[in-house]
């Protein structure tokens, strides 16, 4: 049997649900019998060795300030555009991936990598936060989605594929090697979205070879 190549994943480790993503990704590596490492990254040099990057939930204003001040915005953009970095953003991370933000308080520097438009805190404040069982693409079982002061994706471009909706709101979209998710899979026990992200990294790597 041919050994699967080593996969290295980073989680932007500035603020928010960082350890939860790391723990879940580690579990996915074990379950998939893939050799890999996942660690928090906050410096430009740390981006070099990774093939997958997770932008966690947290405060989008806070996280984006750091991406900018630590000079990470351009480097992340460059790597994704050259096709050597797959990226997944959850909640605040989803906001950062967007091309445009529908918001009067736009203290946020966007990566603008995905052809989507988002509205922050679209459902309201914390008391409006909710859990809902949602259907993702053609996946067999529903996914326990946790929405915390969540954004929604208000518009998608033609290169995007909508993977999930809550009522009429778009909540999960993919575009090439990128995944934008408005909820928090890292807060549940369900590893399927993280497994799916791993498979996206693997197919990106195969294309490169």
């Amino acid at each position, binding site marked *: 049997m041919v050994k699967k190549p080593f996969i290295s994943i980073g989680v932007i*480790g*500035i*603020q*928010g*649900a*960082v*350890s*939860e993503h790391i723990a879940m990704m580690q579990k996915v590596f074990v379950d998939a019998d893939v050799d890999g490492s996942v660690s928090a990254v*906050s410096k430009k040099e740390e981006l070099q060795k990774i093939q997958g990057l997770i932008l966690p*939930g*947290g*405060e989008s*204003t*806070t996280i984006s*300030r*750091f991406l900018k001040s630590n000079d990470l915005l351009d480097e992340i953009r460059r790597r994704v555009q050259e096709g050597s970095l797959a990226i997944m953003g959850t*909640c*605040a991370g989803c906001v950062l991936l967007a091309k445009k933000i529908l*918001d009067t*308080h736009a*203290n946020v520097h966007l990566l603008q990598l995905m052809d989507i438009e988002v509205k*922050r*805190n679209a459902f*309201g*404040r*914390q*008391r*409006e*936060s*909710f*859990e*809902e*069982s949602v259907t993702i693409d053609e996946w067999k079982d*529903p996914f326990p989605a*946790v929405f*915390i*002061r969540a954004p929604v994706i208000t518009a998608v471009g033609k290169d995007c594929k909508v993977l999930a909706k809550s009522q009429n709101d778009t909540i999960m979209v993919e575009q090439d090697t990128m995944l934008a998710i408005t909820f*928090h899979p890292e*807060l*549940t026990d369900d590893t399927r979205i993280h497994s799916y992200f791993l498979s996206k990294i693997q197919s990106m790597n195969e294309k490169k070879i």
Partner: protein
Amino acid sequence: MGFGTMEKIDLKKLMHGTVLLKKGFAKMQKGGVVMDVTNAEQASIAEKSGAVAVMALERVPADIRKYGGVARMADPGVIQEIMDTVSIPVMAKARIGHFAEALALQSIGVDMIDESEVLTPADPFYHINKHKFTIPFVCGCRNLGEAVRRIWEGAAMIRTKGEAGTGNIIEAIRHQRMVNCMIFELKTATDDKISELVEEYSQSYVNAYQTLTNITPTQNTRVFDDFTLETIKEEMFDVIKEIQKLQRLPVVNFAAGGIATPADAAIMMQLGSDGVFVGSGIFKSTNPTQRAKAIVEAVAHYDDASVIAEVSKNLGDAMVGIDIDEIPKEQRLQERGW
């Protein structure tokens, strides 16, 4: 842990106010700085400086100390104005045990309530039953016993009490070390030892009941809302077992009470805090914006000494600060709550 109301809902429907949502909200604050603000203008400065959330209150703790009198929940009109001004979460303080203040804060839509010893306690016997709320609570603690009681009562986040309004870090460090050392002790604790701790930690509910009735409660006596002493002990045992297994608190744990400088924030992070609350430290200093930004940087890069040194340069005067020994024990805010 099962606490009625939320569980029996059809999965197809939306579920609000669950334990997962409350604890999840707190997790989104990790690695961040929550700043005390008294008006919309300060809130805006905090947001621009990189705060993950703001804490709305009438007076910062240093002024509560200075002016004395009864400190209460802030004016909901001012809180509303702050909520309308910033897009980051807005937290607000309610007095210990004052569930009507907490309900009022919930109804205007604050994102988290701090049941805080910085305000004058309202109930001499009980803290708020936080399970009854749909929004999450943060509570202060001085030691593991207080942390376990608050977590059992439904707090989604714990912070050190420290000694608010002093600009003196010593009490926050004391409280963090008290918690850390006990958690380490738990590592090798037998179930019998944990049962002993449960007896000790549940004693304050017994004491309250005895004071109120002059009767010693039995295991079946309801000593806190609808909870019998037996239920409290069983569930507290589970909370402690979880702490033993995780080797940390099972909820997000912030530092608070006396943080005035970037290095103060960094030492608390090094000691295991997940983030920090800064009260008087920012808006009682000579250059709030720069200090706010510096503390945010310090929390994000707490293990990089060169960053701490860099952001600490030319910050101007920190708040003046008070030596703990100058504050008589009965005037220390941390003595409030039990």
